[in-house]
């Protein structure tokens, strides 16, 4: 995926001008910078949820896995039903062995038949990460994926991202905390 000469100016404040970026297979790219510098906006533009004022985005693989501030899981349905829905969207049946494996890994097995609204924020986040895995996306766009996770959850997600990139996938992370990936490609965004 490449981003060329991106220009975005919502309202009067210019977020970025002439931004170029390309993400190759196996790469972790961290977007970093203070609040309000446009990390989430850039991520949304890359996902295609938002239109830039100028510039071009080429996506070589679709669909891509996007995890935003919202959890992206239906709060009335159960965990399992949400996984089912994600795999339906991606056009395959839910592989129940895989689902079970992921649920076990994320300690959600006991909560699998509870509806999302009964879960804590951290558990919801875990559930949306499982949805990301179920979808078999090549490119992940993660907006603050570590928020509301406990330390074991953070470690788990970090390992998953590294595994994902080792297997030829790539990840873009927006994060304001310190870098968690030694080999990551760091992109600093600042308020201009």
């Amino acid at each position, binding site marked *: 995926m490449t981003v060329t000469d991106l220009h975005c*100016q919502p309202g*009067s404040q*210019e977020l970025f001008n002439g931004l170029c970026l390309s993400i190759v297979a196996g790469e972790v790219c961290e977007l970093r910078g203070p609040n309000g510098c446009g990390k989430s906006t850039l991520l949304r533009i890359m996902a295609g949820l938002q*239109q830039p004022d100028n510039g071009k985005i080429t996506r070589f693989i679709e669909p891509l896995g996007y995890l935003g501030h919202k959890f992206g899981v239906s709060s009335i349905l159960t965990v399992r039903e949400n996984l089912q829905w994600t795999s339906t969207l991606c056009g395959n049946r839910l592989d129940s062995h895989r689902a079970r494996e992921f649920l076990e890994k994320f300690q959600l097995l006991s909560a699998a038949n509870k509806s999302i609204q009964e879960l804590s924020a951290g558990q919801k986040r875990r559930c949306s990460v499982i949805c990301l895995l179920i979808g078999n996306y090549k490119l992940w766009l993660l907006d603050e994926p570590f928020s509301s996770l406990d330390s074991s959850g953070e470690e788990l997600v970090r390992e998953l991202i590294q595994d994902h990139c080792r297997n030829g996938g790539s990840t873009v992370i927006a994060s304001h905390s310190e870098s968690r990936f030694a080999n990551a490609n760091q992109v600093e965004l600042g308020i201009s």
Partner: protein
Amino acid sequence: MHRLASPQHFFLDTKMWVVWLYVVGIIGLLVGSIWGLAFVPPERFQGDSFRIIFVHVPVAIFAQIVYISLAIAGGVHLVWKLRMADVYMAAATPVGFWLTALALGSGMMWGIPTWGTPWEWDARIVSTFFLLILFLGLIVLRQVIPNPARATTALSILAIVGAINIPIIKYSVVWFNTLHQPASIELFGDISIHTIYRIPLFTNIASVFILTAGIILANMRYLTIERNASKTWVQPWIQGRDQ
């Protein structure tokens, strides 16, 4: 034409156009109206009350034409993403709204002496009424959608759907009315417009057209400045206005 598609050239090139359109439009409107109101003999059946035709007809025609042009601009925006189409839509919507309101108001005023009632559920009135609601919808929709790109696309879709809808409304009301009551109102059925009335009427139609174009153009120039406020070529203009 290509030159005018860029905001800067558009702004710089059209300054004198606005002035001329205003001058010609206002003079034409004055001539047509005074002629129509003072120098034309009263009409055979309606007496003096028919003179409101010189306001009503031009305004009603351009209310519809502005709406159609909005739908066309919406189509242009959806297909070619032309920025000026967006500016045109934003500039023309309020103008169309007021034209429609004026058409309805003058029609009601005309209705009282002629039909004995300001309002009759006839096809023409109903479709103009819904035209007014559609214009209102477009204005409100632009206000509630903060993101301009999204607002324009939403407005384009609404304008196009509305443009398909208005003729169907008109037809369905015609049909529905004939179902319930015999058509009692035929505006120009037995009264052909005499040449003597035609000249001031056409003068006014042309003047309203010119004036509408002038107002829309002035609006467009204003919006161009507002949307490009951060560009360097705009700075002298903004400062000039502040002084």
